[in-house]
């Protein structure tokens, strides 16, 4: 095999130049083939004069010639055929495979003030080809992001985008694209998944799109956290495709299925970093934290940071300059010990309306450990392959360690099918735990992500077994959330939950945070993210201690003044776990009076706290946060009542506040056309990077040819050549 490899390498320079690999070999062989053919006729005439061995040689050479012609003929036929095979659109007219033409650059500029982070995200599409291009890019944003601005930059000019109803915006964009104008359109596909389209990118030029969005900062157990997704884990689409199609895997985009009607819009082609152009898919990030209080530490579980401090303002950059967009960028900051805020109020006035954002941390509220029934559900689907399944296994092992002999437990794994370790939850005895550990160690990741049957299995009603003391039943769901039918799963959780609680643990470099957070919210639990193998123990410790602690239920808020004009969100707060803050945003409340919050502790006692609103600091972007919360609330209501959300009301609200939503999107159009209508425009779907540490879920095509034809051809040519030389030598001799 060594020999053949060397030959291939020698051979390869030619195949670059030649239109079809076969042709050059054919031409040279055909020429060689003539040598013996020409020399053969004279040898026939003189065959009686020569020795018999000569005759055999000539016979051999003739046979070789016939063999070679037989062998070469199909090659030649094939070479002339390949020129007009129409399907090979990814090969240009010179037979070269086309690299993705667009190079993508991203710049994040984030300012954190109080509890809201305001970001500018500049995406630049550089066209490296000689053709006009349309770039389409599917990208994630933080799961609570409110997008409020789009600016397109072409050279020196900037064009401001406008909010329009989704269909109108798309029509505007398509019209501008046809007319040859510069245009950009950004749509929301999922609350954390967006599609950017940029039309008419001139050859060798760059068009940039700047998005403005804000997101609430996470605060838990005294630590602030901001996460910046840069790529997405390929989602699993349950259901059968709506229309059977021959181009099933066309450029890697999934087809719409019955359960996920927009599967094609949320599944970009996922590639390895080596498969994109040099310098593409890199992001530079600058984060300015103005926390308003002295910070002890700024850290990141995902990247190395460089920080510089100026008073109370801290500037954070990744140490490597621009990062590869293959994992979430996560930054955490912690106030000085003992200075962690337990309450905060921000105030803003916008268009004559007052907006308030209030945060309250209930703090330590006692501890009482009840016997529990814990069900661990672990995702072993193909998207978890690689680093993710290792993290998930160690998370599960850590969970098993927290069990006491009073607890019952079970382990359920699922991919295309769900499978439970025990028929029903068993006592956490040493024997059972050992079995569970073994079971977990043997888990491998493969197959689909059929979450619904696994949820049913985990949330099923307990059977019989009247116990002496009530057990708290909790489900821990360990997954990367790589599913496309989120809404259906939330509905299922709500219907099957009963008095149980569902906690989600997010795994991998780019989990679907929207699914994790919302599933935990519908499941009356919490969401914990694990970012890397070294980051497993900390967050899990917090989760397991939160699960042991009792929660605050029946939370009520009372704003000062008359109730009528006040709209506050969330409408109904969920239950609160240890270390979690209560966050409310309200419209129609001025910064006066007191906010009263009451709730019930697990023992039944009442819990009360008041917050002085006059202490409010001025904040920014509160009205957008309020509008986003209101939209979320409307969609929740629709989900609970099983109806379609009020599309008109949401559209109106989003347009009034300049926000993107499920029904509104941004579009920016340059007025003057730049591309002549007859010049072709090629679409270019930009791939996203495979999340770090995960393995390619999709199979590569294997190498399915041998060197046999090449070896045989070379061998035959060589033999003919030698025989021809021998014949010539004989003839030269008297």
């Amino acid at each position: 095999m060594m020999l053949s490899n060397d030959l291939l390498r020698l051979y390869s320079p030619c195949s670059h130049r030649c239109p079809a690999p076969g042709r050059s070999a054919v031409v040279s062989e055909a020429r060689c083939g003539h040598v013996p053919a020409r020399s053969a006729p004279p040898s026939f005439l003189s065959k009686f004069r020569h020795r018999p061995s000569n005759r055999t040689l000539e016979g051999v050479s003739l046979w070789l010639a016939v063999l070679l012609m037989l062998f070469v003929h199909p090659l030649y036929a094939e070479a002339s055929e390949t020129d007009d095979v129409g399907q090979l659109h990814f090969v240009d007219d010179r037979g070269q495979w086309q690299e993705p033409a667009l190079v993508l650059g991203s710049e994040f500029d984030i300012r954190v003030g109080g509890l809201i982070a305001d970001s500018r995200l500049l995406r630049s599409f550089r066209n490296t080809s000689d053709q006009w291009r349309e770039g389409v890019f599917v990208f994630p944003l933080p799961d609570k992001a409110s997008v409020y601005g789009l600016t397109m930059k072409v050279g020196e000019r900037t064009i401001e985008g406008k909010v329009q109803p989704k269909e109108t915006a798309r029509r505007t964009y398509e019209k501008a694209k046809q007319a040859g104008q510069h245009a950009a359109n950004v749509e929301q596909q999922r609350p954390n998944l967006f599609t950017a389209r940029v039309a008419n990118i001139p050859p060798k030029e760059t068009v940039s799109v700047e998005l403005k969005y804000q997101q609430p900062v996470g605060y838990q157990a005294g630590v602030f956290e901001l996460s910046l997704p840069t790529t997405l884990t390929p989602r699993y689409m349950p259901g059968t495709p709506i229309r059977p199609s021959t181009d099933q895997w066309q450029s890697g985009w999934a087809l719409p299925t019955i359960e996920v009607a927009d599967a094609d819009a949320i599944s970009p082609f996922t590639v390895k970093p080596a498969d994109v152009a040099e310098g593409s898919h890199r992001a530079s990030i600058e984060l300015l934290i103005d926390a308003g209080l002295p910070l002890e530490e700024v850290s990141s579980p995902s990247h190395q940071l460089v920080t510089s401090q100026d008073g109370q303002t801290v500037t954070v950059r990744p140490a490597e300059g621009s990062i590869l967009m293959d994992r979430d960028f996560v930054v955490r900051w912690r106030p000085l010990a003992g200075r962690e805020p337990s309450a905060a109020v921000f105030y803003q006035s916008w268009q004559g309306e007052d907006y308030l954002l209030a945060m309250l941390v209930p703090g330590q509220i006692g501890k009482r450990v009840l016997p529990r029934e814990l069900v661990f559900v672990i995702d072993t689907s193909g998207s978890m392959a690689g680093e993710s399944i290792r993290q998930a296994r160690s998370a599960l092992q850590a969970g098993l360690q927290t069990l006491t002999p009073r607890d019952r437990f079970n382990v359920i794994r699922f991919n295309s099918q769900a499978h439970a370790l025990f028929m029903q939850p068993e006592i956490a005895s040493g024997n059972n735990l050992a079995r569970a550990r073994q079971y977990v160690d043997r888990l491998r990741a493969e197959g689909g992500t059929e979450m619904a049957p696994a949820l049913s299995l985990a949330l099923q009603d307990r059977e019989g077994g009247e116990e002496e003391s009530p057990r708290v039943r909790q489900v821990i769901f360990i997954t990367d959330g790589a599913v496309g039918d989120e809404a259906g799963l939330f509905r299922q959780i709500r219907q099957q939950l009963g008095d149980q609680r569902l906690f989600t643990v997010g795994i991998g470099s780019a989990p679907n945070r929207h699914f994790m957070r919302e599933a935990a919210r519908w499941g009356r639990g919490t969401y914990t993210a694990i970012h890397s193998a070294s980051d497993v123990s900390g967050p899990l410790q917090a989760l397991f201690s939160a699960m042991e602690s009792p929660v605050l239920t029946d939370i009520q808020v009372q704003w000062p003044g008359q109730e009528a004009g006040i709209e506050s969100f969330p409408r109904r707060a969920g239950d609160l776990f240890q270390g979690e803050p209560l966050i409310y945003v309200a419209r129609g409340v001025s910064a006066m009076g007191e906010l009263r919050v009451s709730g019930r502790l697990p023992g039944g006692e009442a819990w009360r706290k008041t917050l002085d609103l006059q202490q409010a600091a001025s904040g920014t972007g509160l009205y957008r946060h309020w509008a986003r919360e209101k939209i979320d609330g409307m969609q929740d209501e629709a989900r609970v009542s099983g109806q379609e959300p009020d599309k008109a009301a949401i559209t109106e609200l989003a347009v009034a506040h300049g926000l993107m939503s499920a029904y509104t999107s941004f579009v920016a159009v340059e007025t003057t056309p730049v591309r002549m209508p007859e010049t072709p425009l090629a679409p270019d779907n930009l791939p996203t990077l495979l999340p770090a540490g995960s393995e390619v879920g999709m199979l590569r095509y294997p190498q399915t040819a041998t060197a046999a034809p090449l070896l045989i051809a070379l061998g035959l040519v060589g033999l003919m050549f030698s025989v021809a030389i021998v014949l010539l030598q004989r003839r030269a001799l008297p």
Partner: protein
Amino acid sequence: MTRLLLLLLTSSATLLVFGLWIPLKAVLAQEMLEVAWAESQARQVESRPWPWADTWPVARLAIPALNDSMIVLADTHGESLAFGPGRLAGGDDGNGAVIIAGHRDTHFRGLNALEAGNEIRLQGRNGRWRSYRVENARVVDSRSERIDAQQLPAGTLLLVTCYPFNSVDAGGPLRYVVRARADGITAPREQIDTVAGI
């Protein structure tokens, strides 16, 4: 001069022998695989065709239209494709799609002759034959496409080989993919039943 000629002669002859050895190996290996396949069906275990093999037979693929039948090996790693087509995805249970890849110049040489409607039969270790009908065939570029096995509906069979069929370039990027859909499971062959009963 004579020495040079001798060198050319021997090296060309060696090349030819190497070149001819590959299809010969493919034929010989299939004979040995027949034995291993019979044994694995009888004992319902993975039985390796020769002690140092890193693969084992998992199915039998029959293409009546080409009057051809061959043993399919597990996976496509290493040298296994030289001995027989390899199964990239799919199991015996019949759930999910089955993807089989083979060399275009040995076992899957006749694939371009398959037409829509032709029958392909696949036998699992349990002896059950499953019948498929060819739906279509197309050419893909392996650099810009992957096979998403999870997205393929159950009962799909993909046969993958290199394209163009008569090219001498073994490292080409194009693949020829034949797609077939299951008709249903046909009755097991009786002689397999008796062997399985031992």
